[in-house]
């Protein structure tokens, strides 16, 4: 519908509310009689709990309850959700530890919840938590994934040999070994993908409310997939899902992190059950660093085999992936579900990947924007640049030579990705033109005169989006003919409301002002999964399209019946009788559909429709990032000067929002490459980056203006032709920035720069390189 149609840069419908301070984040919600919870967390990375004395805390002012593991164990609640399904190298099942909401006998990371205090005020709960006496016997710990599976490493779980959680193999080992045996060149490199944290601006929080009279639980919380969340939490509570309501308000960012059923979700519900009152817990920022799930943290030993012409013959990768101390459904997925990105956009015929997932004395892990994709993209795109350097081929040229041409689509890569479409070379060419690739050497020379080392780096990455799954949508008409749209998706800032209203407006011809969007309440949404893995435009968008299609089909029959004709046409919200000039609007038909006299005999009243859309095929967004940056030779300070992206995310639903997703993703990838890093003390396992004073967040100042262009190649894997856009920016940014850094320092003989490339690290690399040359 005109300015709101699919493809238009529609400004967001959620914005006026959020801009007026009208958001409803979990901490904004107050329920009468509400109490406040405080978690007492382990100060040790690994320790035996010899005793806990809660007597002083219980007697403190305002305290309503003090809960420890025994209270959880006797409550009737079971383990928090646990990962399952993977296997160890010998074929035996993965190691799945029990996961109570409060630690039993031992603590396994700094931040592991030990007790939960419930009091009248937050301050009283905090004060009382300090009065709990825990006697710990400190044990040796391991936080590094590289050391975790070494023989003799401290065991996180006594009966989990070498801390190995599971292994995962993918690709063709024999074929890969043959390729390496025949290779003219082999490029080998160990890549360390650091641990980072989502640092959502809204921290996690929950309010648990047990209604004793109704014997029903309600949780108001921060999440991504309300219906999946209800399924997992109901299992923990040992109740049918019908006795649990999950409500998400506005979510202040998640990026994967908030997707789990965390300990505190169980604790506020148990606190409410014990006290008979609602209990709220909201994480403080500093607490979040030891309480949130972290992302990435793996080590890749990667090798690429090439022939003498620079054609990729094979790829062999061994990954060690940090699992933290506990696993949940989804916390392990980053280790295996997106390895396909390693194959890149290249013809490489033989690939094999061997992944070992390792427990350590660290926070649990969760997907963080990309969830294995940026890690894999970093490995392949760094290897390609190393190969280009070794063989003396231009980085753009070596990529071009190896790219899968459109005429080979569909193309089964050497890993799981079976690509349906893509025009990689065209995207590459457009990017090179945007950045003025040919003019780079002149810019490098000019920068050199200013004491700056200028480098250029590119990445061409591909990922999967909208993995096979389903989503629900419902269109409800009220008696005035206005509409409420519901889906299972839950926005955390992506702008679902805007895109869904565009689709409804476009397909039904109803003005967005008369459409209300509702999400995140399991008592309202009938079916679906939720948001994650860049799935919502493809799955949620298609579900809404199917639902509105059903509305139109039925409305056409009613309109024809009302106008006494056999058939009507429908366009822009108006039904037109073919034989006469009579018309009816969608609103008129919707209102009329409420009365039996207006509808054909045997038809159900109303125009409401639901859709349960599913897909068995994922889509493959891809794109090229090119970065130009300058390094200050005296200080090691990095300044990005140009950043261009050409992205293929299929059909573009809203270019304004797409740009926001890509740039936002880039900022997180750049953050990891240049500054962010969760660091643990290797001896005692303390998190050394436990606040915004220690953990470097990217600020406005570090970014140049980012130029983005879309090259749309619609996919046939969903109705709308869209490919996911949520993670693409982050995926491409890590390797592009890394390649630019190396290029800037290449004249010194530098072949690699570890992340994060802080000024100190870059300065040291320059000094060492110069010393080595002298």
């Amino acid at each position, binding site marked *: 519908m005109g300015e709101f149609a699919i493809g238009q840069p529609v400004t967001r419908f959620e*914005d006026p509310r959020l801009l007026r*301070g009208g958001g409803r984040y979990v901490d904004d919600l107050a329920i009468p009689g509400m109490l406040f919870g405080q978690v007492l967390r382990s100060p040790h990375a690994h320790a035996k709990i010899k005793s806990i004395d809660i007597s002083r805390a219980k007697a403190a002012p305002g305290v309503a309850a003090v809960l420890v593991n025994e209270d959880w164990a006797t409550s009737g609640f079971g383990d928090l959700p646990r990962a399952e399904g993977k296997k160890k190298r010998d074929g035996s099942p993965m190691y799945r530890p029990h996961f109570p909401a409060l630690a039993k006998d031992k603590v396994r990371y700094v931040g592991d919840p030990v007790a939960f205090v419930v009091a009248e005020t937050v301050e009283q709960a905090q004060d009382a938590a300090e009065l709990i006496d825990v006697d710990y016997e400190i044990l040796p710990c391991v936080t590094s994934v590289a050391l975790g599976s070494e023989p003799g490493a401290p065991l996180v779980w006594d009966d989990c040999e070498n801390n190995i959680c599971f292994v995962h193999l993918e690709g063709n080992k024999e074929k890969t070994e043959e390729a390496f045996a025949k290779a003219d060149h082999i490029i080998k490199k160990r890549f360390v993908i650091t641990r980072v944290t989502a640092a959502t601006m809204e921290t996690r929080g929950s309010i648990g409310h047990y209604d004793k009279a109704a014997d029903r639980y309600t949780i108001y919380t921060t999440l991504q997939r309300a219906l999946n969340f209800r399924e997992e939490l109901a299992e923990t509570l040992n109740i049918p899902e019908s006795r649990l309501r999950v409500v998400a308000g506005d979510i*202040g960012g998640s*990026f994967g992190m908030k997707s789990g059923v965390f300990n505190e979700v169980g604790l506020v519900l148990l606190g409410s059950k014990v006290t008979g009152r609602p209990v709220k817990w909201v994480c403080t920022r*500093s607490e979040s660093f030891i309480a949130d799930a972290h992302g990435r943290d793996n080590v890749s030993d990667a090798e690429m085999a090439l022939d003498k012409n620079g054609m990729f013959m094979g790829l062999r990768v061994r990954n060690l992936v940090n699992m933290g101390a506990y696993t949940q459904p989804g916390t392990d997925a980053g280790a295996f579900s997106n390895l396909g990105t390693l194959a890149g956009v290249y013809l490489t015929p033989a690939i094999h990947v061997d992944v070992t997932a390792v427990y350590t004395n660290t926070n649990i892990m969760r997907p963080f924007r990309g969830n294995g994709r940026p890690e894999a993209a970093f490995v392949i795109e760094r290897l390609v640049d190393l190969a280009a350097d070794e063989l003396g081929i231009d980085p753009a040229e070596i990529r071009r030579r190896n790219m899968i041409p459109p005429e080979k689509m569909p193309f089964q890569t050497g890993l799981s990705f079976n690509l349906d479409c893509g025009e990689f070379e065209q995207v590459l060419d457009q990017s090179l033109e945007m950045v003025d690739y040919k003019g780079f050497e002149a810019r490098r020379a000019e920068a050199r005169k200013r004491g700056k080392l200028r480098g250029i780096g590119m990445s061409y990455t591909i990922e999967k989006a909208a993995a096979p799954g389903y989503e629900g949508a419902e269109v409800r008409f009220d008696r005035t003919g206005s509409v409420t749209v519901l889906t299972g998706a839950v926005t955390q800032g992506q702008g679902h409301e805007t895109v869904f209203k565009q689709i409804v407006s476009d397909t039904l011809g109803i003005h967005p002002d008369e459409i209300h969007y509702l999400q995140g309440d399991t008592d309202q949404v009938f079916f679906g999964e939720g948001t994650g893995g860049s799935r919502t435009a493809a799955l949620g968008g298609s579900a809404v399209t199917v639902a509105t299609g059903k509305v139109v089909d039925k409305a056409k029959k009613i309109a024809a019946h009302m106008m006494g004709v056999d058939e009507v046409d429908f366009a822009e919200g108006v039904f037109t009788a073919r034989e006469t000039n009579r018309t009816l609007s969608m609103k008129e038909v919707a209102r009329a559909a409420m009365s039996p006299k207006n509808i054909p005999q045997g038809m159900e009243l109303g125009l409401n429709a639901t859709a349960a859309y599913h897909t068995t095929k994922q889509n493959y967004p891809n794109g090229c990032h090119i970065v130009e940056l300058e390094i200050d030779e005296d200080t090691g300070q990095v300044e990005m000067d140009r950043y261009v992206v050409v992205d293929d995310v299929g059909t573009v639903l809203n270019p304004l929002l797409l740009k926001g997703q890509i740039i936002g993703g880039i900022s997180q990838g750049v953050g990891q490459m240049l500054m962010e890093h969760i660091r643990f003390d290797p001896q005692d396992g303390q998190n050394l980056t436990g606040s915004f004073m220690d953990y470097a967040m990217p600020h406005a100042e570090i970014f140049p203006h980012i130029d983005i262009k879309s090259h749309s190649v619609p996919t046939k894997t969903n109705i709308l032709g869209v490919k996911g856009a949520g993670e693409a920016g982050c995926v491409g940014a890590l390797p592009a920035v890394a390649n630019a850094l190396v290029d800037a320092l290449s004249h010194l003989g530098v072949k690699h720069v570890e992340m994060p490339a802080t000024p100190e690290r870059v300065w040291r690399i320059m000094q060492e390189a110069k010393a080595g040359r002298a």
Partner: protein
Amino acid sequence: MDIEVKMTVNGKAVSGKVEARTLLVQFIREHLRMTGTHVGCDTTQCGCCVVHVDGVAMKSCTMLAVQAEGKAITTIEGLAGPDGELHPMQQAFRDHHGLQCGFCTPGMVMMGVDIANRLPGADEKTVRHQLEGNICRCTGYQGIVEAIMDASAVMNAARS
């Protein structure tokens, strides 16, 4: 223990009894139940809590409620016109997609107004530098910076 505080918030006289340790942001959020002002950290880094105190941007998490005695506070709820029309800064944030999850947004908008007031016509580099006390995790800042520059021009034109 409780101390009586009085101040003006968005043009309305308000008062309340607070503890000495009560932060201005707690007074606004918990006593007045105006939840548009957010708390995103505990070390004065993120700027989600920025309000105006006597017309100047301040982090309300780093000021005690008692320090605001007698002052005029403006929060995000008080920025729109009396008829509900969005302030030019709010409108520009919408036009330039300067917000996603919306959590840092109230602080960003209040800071943006402050930048526009202090440095009319500031260039992109200056605006980016002026945002060093505000963190956004979603947008990559580009839409925010464009919004502040755009609104600054509109506000400037309205002044002259």
